[in-house]
């Protein structure tokens, strides 16, 4: 988790994680445990071993901290999708990065319908990622159709990782989940 929480441009102490990063990691852990509404600023500060005053020194509040976490998630996942060299590898990356940020995604699901600006950010990220996935679906499938397939795959994995974060599903290896989904895209479920 440490490595994924070191965004570019973040001023870093010598070998130490910055206070800001410690707070973000604490936010992630608290959201994972309690969801967005259940995570109080006091809980996040306590998780970080700091005072609420210290948190407010770095963030306007819970929403600002969450927004930055989600931004990092978006950066990490688009980078991972860019680097992956096949659709199947992208699906693996999607699951792995989403699991790293499961607290942020649990929080996101909790406010998706009530914060239009967050819904818009999540929608934009889905569009960007669908584009990156569609690029790997070459062949007679039009880009428009490929994007639709990609969006649906993203939706499926979003819900899959959300259910995991709620403790409703046992974790399966991400390569197995990706292989099953990729198999459905290529071959469906029935023998030809």
């Amino acid at each position, binding site marked *: 988790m440490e490595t994924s929480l070191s965004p570019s441009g973040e001023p870093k102490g010598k070998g130490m994680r910055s206070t800001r990063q410690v707070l973000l990691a604490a936010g992630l852990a608290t959201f994972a445990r*309690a*969801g*967005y*509404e*259940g995570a109080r600023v006091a809980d996040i500060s306590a998780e970080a071993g700091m005072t609420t005053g210290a948190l407010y020194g770095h963030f306007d509040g819970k929403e600002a901290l969450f927004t930055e976490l989600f931004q990092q998630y978006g950066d990490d996942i688009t980078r991972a999708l860019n680097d992956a060299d*096949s*659709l*199947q590898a992208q699906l693996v990356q999607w699951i792995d990065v989403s699991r790293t940020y499961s607290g942020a995604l*649990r929080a996101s*699901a*909790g406010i*998706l*319908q*009530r914060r239009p600006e967050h*819904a818009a950010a999540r*929608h934009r990220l*889905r569009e960007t990622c669908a584009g990156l996935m569609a690029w*790997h*679906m*070459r*062949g*007679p*499938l039009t880009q428009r*159709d*490929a994007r*639709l*397939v990609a*969006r*649906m795959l993203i*939706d*499926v994995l*979003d*819900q*899959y990782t959300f*259910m995991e974060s*709620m403790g*409703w*599903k046992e974790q*399966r290896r991400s390569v*197995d*989940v990706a*292989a*099953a*989904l990729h*198999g*459905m*895209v*290529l*071959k*469906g*479920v*029935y*023998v*030809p």
Partner: protein
Amino acid sequence: MTDAQSSSTDFSWTPSEGRAPASRRGHRTRDRILEAAVSVFEERGLVEVTMQEIGQRAGLSSGTVYKYFRDKADIFRFLLTQLRQTISEETTIPLDDDDKLIVRPAVSRFLELYRDNVALYRVWWESLDPQNEFSDVWVEVHEGYRKGFIAALKRGGRTGVTRPDLDVELVAELAVLLFERPTYSRIVLGWDAEIEDHQVSAVTTALLGSGLGATVTG
């Protein structure tokens, strides 16, 4: 989502002490409250809505609303009990003569159900976290669908139509999600407005049929 639908959770609405409508007029009043609640839920969800607001929309005092329902969650509990009944009656995916899922009409029905009950689905999804009685029902419905897909895929396995290399448990899970989440994105969140139902249906049918392999590489 196939015939193996189960309903194990003990979830239902019963009027609390003295709250059942006694007369035809009482029933009409209760219906008015429910109708008002649905319209308020559709616009604003559940969390930020008050009983007073529901009363206002129905043209009734909040005292009258409390005569029939304990609180706003009680109203949703009533509506969800009805919706769950509809779901278990109407969301089945039949098998064809070759024991393969007939997907297309099921997708249409699923979309239709979401459109007809968009307010309730909105509140339901909004209520998933933290875990509570409503998310328990959501998970139960999800598990019912999943077991249905497992049964259907295993049946196909016995008759040799299902791909032998299939991870049935995992594919059944993903199959349910393929119905649930894109429909939520589309109908509740209002995403993908430019996409038409038949396009969604075509993708779902392919992924639960013979795939898109002929058109996709990678």
